[in-house]
């Protein structure tokens, strides 16, 4: 038996609905016989009547509704049809739910699922990675699972957490990633994972870029370099200790993220490593992000717009030569 990243997300939601009466799923096209634009909720409306609900195309009101329900004790899971459209709910996410616990002492346990990142032919409005935007604002936990196992256990953990969680699931991984079975338990949120050990270079990444970084590490291994790959798993909180420990072993750091290059998660990792671990570095820390343009539609453009195994390898080679 094999299970995909997407099926793991569906299975996690089925388990959550089964185990906890407080859980309901709210989003565009998630209900009925349709089961979501990506089928992440397929069959769930039938299995759990009245708890998997279609909504109007009203991202702001969808999140607002979830906030009210969570204040009253529910554990809503929101599916944004694409992460890109969560920009329409920024006010509810950043200003309402993000400030609520700090202001009122009442935590608001909502989980917002964001189908994130680029896939071939998806263009500027169906490809974005929003994790750095949400991580920038206080009051939110931001998860970025890169494996089937994490997709499953982290979504279950997201709903259990009393605070709002932005759960960034990568669309490119939906069908590309498979596992043999789903684990009962994963690493806790807030702990990064060394996905591959090495002693020449540390690549820090998350979500789909973690998989690209592993492929780059394979290529670098053929050239005789041993690359350590750290999977952040959540970008907020950021497990800088695991990153620093890795940099202490390798002396070289490359951060890879799919979001735009100005600021963001990769810049944050480098800032913290430079601040706390300057003495560990044998070369200037490097980063690789998408280009500073909207995300292109055509595969020829898209394939070089975002980081991938090939350009990560090239960037790593240059860093290893320093």
């Amino acid at each position, binding site marked *: 038996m094999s299970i995909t990243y997407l099926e793991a997300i569906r299975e996690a939601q089925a388990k959550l609905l089964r185990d906890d009466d407080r859980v309901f799923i709210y989003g565009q096209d998630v209900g009925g016989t349709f089961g979501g634009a990506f089928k992440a909720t397929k069959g769930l409306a039938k299995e759990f009547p009245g708890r998997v609900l279609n909504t*109007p195309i009203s991202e702001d009101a969808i999140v*607002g*509704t979830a906030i009210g*329900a*969570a204040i009253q004790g529910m554990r809503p899971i929101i599916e944004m049809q694409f992460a890109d459209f969560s920009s329409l709910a920024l006010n*509810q996410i950043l200003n309402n739910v993000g400030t609520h616990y700090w202001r009122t002492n009442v935590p608001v346990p909502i989980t917002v699922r964001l189908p994130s990142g680029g896939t071939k032919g998806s263009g500027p409005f169906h490809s974005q990675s929003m994790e750095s935007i949400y991580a920038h604002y206080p009051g939110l936990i931001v998860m970025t699972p890169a494996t089937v196992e994490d997709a499953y256990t982290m979504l279950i953990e997201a709903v259990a957490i009393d605070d709002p969680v932005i759960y960034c699931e990568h669309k490119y991984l939906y069908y590309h990633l498979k596992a043999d079975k789903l684990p009962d338990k994963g690493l806790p949120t807030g702990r990064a994972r060394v996905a591959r050990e090495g002693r020449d270079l540390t690549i820090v990444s998350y979500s789909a870029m973690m998989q690209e970084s592993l492929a780059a590490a394979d290529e670098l291994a053929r050239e005789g370099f041993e690359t350590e790959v750290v999977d952040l798993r959540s970008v907020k909180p950021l497990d800088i200790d695991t990153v620093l420990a890795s940099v202490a072993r390798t002396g070289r750091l490359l951060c890879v993220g799919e979001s735009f290059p100005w600021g963001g998660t990769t810049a944050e990792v480098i800032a913290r490593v430079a601040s706390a671990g300057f003495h560990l570095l044998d070369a200037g820390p490097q980063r690789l992000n998408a280009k500073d343009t909207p995300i292109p539609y055509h595969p020829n453009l898209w394939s070089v717009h975002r980081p991938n195994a090939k350009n990560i390898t090239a960037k790593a080679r240059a860093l290893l030569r320093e």
Partner: protein
Amino acid sequence: MLQTAQRTAKSKTKKTAPPHERFLEAFRWMLLARTLEEKLVSLYRGGLITGGVYIGKGQEAVSVACGLFLQKGDIFAPLIRDQAGRSAFGEPLLDVTRTYLGSRQGPMRGRDGNIHRGHPRKNELAMISHLGAMISVTVGALMAKRFKGDKDFIGLACIGEGGMQTGSFHEGMNIAAVEQVPLVVVATNNHYAYSTPNDREFACHDLVDRAIGYGFEGYSLDGTDLTACLDVIGSAVKRARAGRPPQLVVASVLRLSGHGEHDDASYVPDEVKRQPFARDCLKVAEKTIVDLNLLGAETLAQWRKDAAAQVDEAIATAQKEAPPEGDKEDWCAISTRDLADSFE
């Protein structure tokens, strides 16, 4: 489904007053709100309140009716000019003075100020400044109650004609009707969004006509007339409780203050101030009391004294309390402390 906007008869034509007791109770909350806010204004002018002061002068009749009909278990989403409604709903005066004066013991503990306060656990939602956002939050709270099997609850959310022009408001109204939650939305048209008059805010004939488009039942109201406020808002609450579609009440008043106390509202022309909607609802209510001899002059004077004493006590208490301190503050924005990011 019935989705027509209805208009109530003009309040002037109404012959019957509501039960005197309720009218007087409402009046007393209005008096308390006015007394409190006048005091807050003088504290602000004296430099004793940091930030802003935003008062509901001229809107007390509408606001008190919003709070007065709610029961235990109901959800209230007050907005900027709802001191009277908050008090009638059960918010202690100390919540107000502690928030305005920055006491660490207030509900917001110095982390937020003035009208940005609430008690979500006591069903008084804490508004954010971004208008319209609390409509859908109220909808969600009502859905949760339905999920949990609660009975006999409604929600009431307040908005102004300014907030009615936001996308968030439109989305919230639409989703309320889609979910068929027992919601009353009371919109007070005070004729100015900060300094912008109605003719630059919307171009529809009458805001209540929007009820049809949203799938609400709609009612208009002279917000300067407490009798009408109690009648129309009370009836809307009753209908929501009885399972009717969501209710929209649009009340007409004039904001008898600036947007905040930093604003002298010099942009409001004199002819607007002479309009019927510019009447002071508190004076109108007091005239009713005197005309119908509902209270003796002595009792009325005693009520004023009581209000002043309560306000003075709440202010004196809050002024004695310690403010928050930066180096003792708990700088953690999430409740799951072990998931707080470390920036050390």
